[in-house]
């Protein structure tokens, strides 16, 4: 059986990749995808721990996280569509109407 540490490491890497994507990519959609990646990394951590502890309750929690992630994606996409209609761009650099 694969030890739990390996899962955690993979999850940590995924999370880090997500964070880097969030901070560096300029396209709102890709940032959104990176955030989903972070959520999935968290989910993987959860499942890995749950499995290591033999605790099935946490599969339910993973379900919840997936559902929330889906809802978040839905809202996020709607917002991206909305901003594209208004501004004709999804580039985050250009969304600086409000500042200071």
């Amino acid at each position: 059986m694969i030890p739990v540490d390996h899962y955690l490491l993979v999850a940590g890497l995924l999370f880090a990749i997500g964070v880097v994507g969030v901070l560096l990519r300029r396209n709102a959609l890709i940032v959104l995808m990176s955030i989903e990646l972070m959520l999935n990394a968290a989910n993987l951590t959860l499942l890995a721990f749950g499995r290591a502890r033999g605790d099935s309750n946490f599969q339910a929690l993973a379900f919840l996280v997936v559902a929330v992630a889906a809802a978040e994606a839905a809202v996020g996409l709607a917002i991206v569509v909305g901003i594209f209609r208004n501004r004709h761009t999804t580039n985050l650099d250009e969304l600086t109407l409000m500042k200071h």
Partner: protein
Amino acid sequence: MSFDSAQLALSLPLLVVAAGGLLVLLLEAFSGTPARDEHGGRSYLAVAALITLAIATYAAVGQWAEAETPKAIYGGMFAVDRFALFVDVVLFAGAALAVLLAGGFLRTHRFEFGEFYALVLLGTAGAVMLVHANDLVALFIGLETMSLAVYVLTGSWRRSARSSEAAMKYFLVGAFASALLVYGIALVYGTTGTTNLSSLGGLAKGTGGAVMQEPLFLIGSFLIIAGLAFKIAAVPFHMWAPDAYEGAPTPVTAFMAAAVKAAGFATIVRLFTVAYGRPSLTFGAGGWASICAVLAILTMSLGNLAALRQDNVKRMLAWSSIAHAGYILVGVVAMARAGDDARGPILYYLLAYTLTTAGSFGVVAWIGSRGDERQNVDDWAGLAARHPAAALAMTVLLLSLGGFPPTAGFFAKFYIFRVALSQPGLISLVLIAIANSLVSVFYYLRVVTAMYFREAHRPFAPVRASGMTAGLIIATVGTLALGLAPGWVIELASKATLLGK
């Protein structure tokens, strides 16, 4: 496992708001094309939302006596205690004010958005769940339900570029913060094997304490703290707030600044009290109290100094609401040692702050006309001459934000500082807080002097809507009443029990 109606009854406030939200949603969808007349359009949706909130308030108040002994229901996930009920009522008040403000605002700016009321109710349902959450899972679900509704509300003004930009920023930072939060929950669960706040608190007592010294546990806890600090807009997790508050339709801003923040603070109080009851044991040194103290200093100082330079009244109020989060954090710091005694002042502050801030954003919503939101402080010049009652209301609300007696804002700060001063070593924190609140008066009075001492350079055409008028009157009178007779509220608040370990 069987059906237990007693548990359902105990979660009645949540059920009422959620069901009301769904009902209003259906009502909106099946009501046909909106009547575009001048008299209210779809004011029955607002009425339905208000009735829902009234019933929910009634349910929450009805449980007050019973909740003196806290109960945990739904397998320990959902706490029913006076603390949560008090915050429920605060949330309902904030939501009701947002609903009252919305009608006139939506009509004036001609964006028909009947879902507004449903989303406010659903967001409130999320907030209620968050406040009652005695489990990290329930906390997460409540937080997300609330946040998703508010993201949509923020972007609901589809024609406004600012509104969609605000939604974008709020959403991205919010989703990022919740990803951190979920990761934190996963780490805490992984090290301790539980997500129940009471069980986490119990670990500290027993031999499980060693687990709470695991770096992974601590990192997880810090990630959770970061996720919640984002919600209350504590510096440096605050940067989304000025933009989101400025861009969102003003009634939504009122809801965000009042109810969302109140729910965030209630969660922080519950989390720290129940799960991390002994800060030094968990984090070493001052523990979370030190973290909160640093956040408090940064939050109030930066919030006030940045507010000083704003010419946009709405953005100025946004920065000011950041500063207020700093004052409440002083109360949270005091909670580390004063324990239960600090809870009453925090609750009082949340109530006072909700009324005041929702009211002041309400005046901002009121003053604008179609195509002209009049957010610059120059646009407020001469208001007192044309609309003395509104100028007086805004003055009262701003004085309350600035902490002048005898308004609610003064006592809110007074009680917080008093309990903080009772703890050794917090004197410097209180000094900084007092200095900050004295500085803050400067920018509040700037608006007052503009309203009273300058000439209007173009005519006013404010929103005329009975709901909005009612909302402003309620907020202003409430702010004054809380200041004139703070005794019974603080009395109630100090009796707020909290489900323990």
